[in-house]
């Protein structure tokens, strides 16, 4: 196990399994699918700030892996980012912080990842110059827009925005419009679903309304549920270990001479 004896690597990607994985693929072993956030993410600028919205479904192929995942990520107290694409990539990107995020994303996505890291982001924030909304595409290009949608449900959400967006929206109108757009994505796109998360960023205050709307409650639960009697499962062996409280090391007194 020579590899495990080395010090933990300093960071960055390690490509040492690429050849092995290619060999395994030749032998017929399929790579397990990645968790994608086939998504609807939106952002819009209103008169005092920015509203971001996202759905909460994470998919693994055709199966819903997480019915209530968080797609709106914290970057700075006044900057939040929504991510679509491969879940691990968006999580890795938002956890790498820097001063000017838009430039960083551009450089990182274009030069380094070159589109292989499939993460599309909607980034919004408020600073001294006012509210800003940017989108970053997997290959690294960015846009600055008054309203934006990304993800598999972006067409459904954009249709709502294009018909109802106007300059100078109030906070309530902005939240309502974002929620309507996400709901359009949830009900019309198969890759988006479950609940609506909204984040409102204004100068000096940010409100993260997690599960702002729950249009898909779980109504198919049987009220009795399954009840298993003790001993229903056949057990071959049982081993019970008591957990002892850990011994605390406290500072000792100085030894007496």
């Amino acid at each position: 196990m020579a590899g495990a004896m080395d010090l933990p690597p300093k960071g960055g990607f390690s490509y040492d399994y690429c050849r092995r994985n290619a060999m395994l693929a030749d032998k017929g072993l399929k790579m397990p699918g990645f968790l994608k956030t086939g998504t609807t993410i939106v952002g819009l600028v209103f008169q005092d700030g920015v509203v971001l919205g996202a759905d909460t479904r994470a998919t693994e192929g055709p199966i819903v892996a997480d019915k209530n995942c968080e797609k709106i990520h914290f970057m700075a107290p006044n900057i939040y980012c929504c991510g679509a694409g491969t879940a691990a990539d968006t999580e890795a990107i938002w956890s790498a912080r820097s001063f000017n995020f838009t430039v960083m994303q551009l450089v990182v996505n274009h030069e380094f990842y070159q589109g292989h890291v499939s993460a599309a982001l909607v980034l919004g924030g408020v600073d001294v110059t006012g509210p800003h909304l940017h989108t970053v595409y997997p290959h690294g290009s960015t846009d600055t827009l008054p309203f934006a949608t990304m993800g598999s449900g972006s067409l459904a959400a954009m249709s709502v925005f294009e018909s109802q967006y106007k300059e100078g929206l109030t906070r309530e109108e902005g939240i309502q419009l974002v929620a309507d757009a996400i709901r359009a994505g949830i009900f019309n796109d198969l890759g988006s679903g479950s609940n609506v998360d909204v984040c409102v960023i204004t100068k000096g205050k940010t409100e993260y309304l997690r599960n702002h709307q729950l249009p898909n409650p779980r109504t198919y639960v049987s009220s009795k549920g399954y009840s298993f009697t003790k001993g229903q499962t056949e057990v071959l062996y049982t081993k019970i270990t008591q957990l002892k409280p850990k011994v605390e090391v406290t500072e000792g007194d100085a030894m007496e001479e």
Partner: protein
Amino acid sequence: MVGKNCFAIASDRRLGVQLQTVATDFQRVFKIHDKLYIGLSGLATDVQTLYQRLVFRHKLYQLREERDMKPQTFASLVSALLYEKRFGPYFCQPVIAGLGEDNEPFICTMDCIGAKELAKDFVVSGTASESLYGACESMYKPNMEPEELFETVSQALQASVDRDCLSGWGGYVLVVTPTEIQERG
């Protein structure tokens, strides 16, 4: 699966090469420390390599910090380790379960490149995962006591594994409460 101040983690016991069974007592659920367990499904060699790397990192952590790792920290560690190999990943999906501060149960699963997925009720991975989603979804109840949690987890595991040719040969269930660890085969 999470219960009332306790959690259960379970796996099947088969090790196979496509359709041929090679072993019927393969261990997939590993202990990191008394209140933190990781189950790894997927390619057996990656399961064992990853487990050894994680135990190594945790021991280093224990030496430096003089305490055990919290489950949330450990989940971040596993995620980072898997994402390092983004373009040549381990063929392995972990399920992490532990008791955190105040013995609050914590469970999460990841895909093979480290995308964390936290849940409050149950997490699944493996070849029978679609079936497990269905079984757990219907059998899960919130706030189950350890005895009932054991029964529920075993029944869900057995039901799903019976519908999957690549899993089987019994199960191994570990139920951990703040005062004891119950292992059953």
